């Protein structure tokens, strides 16, 4: 007798919690792409853990019907790494934003790439701190001149894809939220690829960066096929205009997975340490 394989629909991954993002926010599309990718892969919702930090994008676990953890600012990758090494059977997807992921969580980003644990890191990049009302983030353009950054920041923006490659990420892609089908396909490929997969999704903030509505006319399919050659990828990413979308690098490093032995820790002793 063969076991019945259940086909999942996008709706199976949607929770009853209504998103409170601003109308027009790119994160709505990203949420759709998540559920579409999960359905495409036929992943049971209870076998997925969506982990996040703090920020608009980090609300995403609540809007899915998967297991989730809305953690502390910038620490989503540390939480996710701990989960994945102890529960390698789970599909771990980490959601972050450019502030959470590249500033407060910047150091975790480097080491998560380096460790190459088998999980997928999705950064919804809108070049601004949206939740805290519009401060410049690490990817904000230097000339971004507002009351909160008079005269612009004058600081060159962070290049997350270059940093990811240099630090050892095993899969690197850029997507645009306004292309939800392609984003879903890339997310599915990222989840399937062994090791640390990094997907940057350009996701406009319509409230604090209305100029980002123009991104839909600025993004373009990367004119090159994906590569597994780090040198070639480095040259491409260093000369990238920031709007190439598609899978840009697919490496073949072996993922890090520590062998888990039987623990001699007495959990009741551990619990005592946290007693109030």
């Amino acid at each position, binding site marked *: 007798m063969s076991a019945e394989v259940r086909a999942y629909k996008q709706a199976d991954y949607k929770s009853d919690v209504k998103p409170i993002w601003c*109308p027009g926010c790119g994160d709505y599309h990203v949420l759709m792409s998540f559920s579409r990718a999960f359905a495409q892969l036929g992943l049971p919702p209870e076998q997925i853990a969506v982990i996040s930090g703090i920020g608009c994008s980090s609300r995403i676990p609540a809007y899915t019907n998967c297991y989730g953890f809305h953690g502390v600012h910038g620490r989503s990758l540390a939480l996710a790494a701990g989960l994945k090494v102890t529960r390698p059977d789970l599909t771990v997807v980490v959601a972050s934003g450019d502030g959470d992921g590249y500033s407060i969580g910047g150091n975790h980003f480097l080491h998560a790439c380096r460790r190459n644990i088998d999980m997928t890191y999705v950064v919804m990049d809108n070049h601004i701190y949206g939740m805290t009302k519009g401060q410049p983030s690490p990817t904000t353009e230097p000339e971004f001149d507002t009351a909160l950054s008079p005269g612009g920041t004058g600081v060159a923006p962070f290049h997350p894809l270059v940093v990811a490659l240099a630090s050892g990420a095993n899969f690197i892609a850029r997507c645009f939220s306004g292309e939800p089908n392609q984003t879903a396909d890339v997310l599915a490929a990222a989840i399937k690829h062994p090791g640390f997969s990094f997907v940057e999704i350009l996701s406009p903030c319509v409230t604090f960066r209305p100029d980002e509505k123009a991104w839909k006319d600025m993004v373009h399919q990367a004119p090159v096929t994906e590569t597994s050659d780090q040198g070639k990828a480095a040259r491409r990413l260093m000369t990238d205009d920031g709007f190439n979308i598609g899978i840009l690098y697919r490496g073949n490093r072996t993922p890090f997975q520590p062998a888990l032995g039987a623990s001699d820790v007495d959990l009741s002793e551990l619990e005592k340490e946290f007693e109030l």
Partner: protein
Amino acid sequence: MSKTAGTPKVANLNDLLAIAYQIEIDAVDRYKLLADQMETHNNPELVKVFRDLARAEGIHGEEIRRMAGDFDVAAHARQIAKFEKSESPEEADLGSAHYMMTPWHALQLSLAGEKRALAYFTSIVETTKDPKVKKLAAELVEEEAEHVALVHRLLLRYPKPSENWADDLDPPVSQE
């Protein structure tokens, strides 16, 4: 590139019924999502507009289900009605939503969706070799053309808002 690149393949009448049904259901889901957004952002006039649009698309979906008779059009739609290169034709553009949008804007989104559906079914008429598919697709073209005309009539009730429709006396934060 062909006119139907990235759109689901229409091999027979059942495929077309399933796709037409899915297009309506996708539109319903999208309008409900927009209504929820407007509810969250306290724009009750738009909540009603989007819920009304969702209801109208739901009625169209039910009409297609009835046309399919005993054939399980919803189940078939889940199998084949996948738009790979774009969103489903009648899905309103989420990126165009704004918390202060007006019924005129909502109807513009609706109009664009109806026009995309019209273009999609027109492309089926132009490309199919199956006379039954061609006949049904032509009926769907006629129906979508009626919807386009209906939205144009509705727009007469809602003139284009002034240039400063998005000015918020209590904005999220001053960026000036």
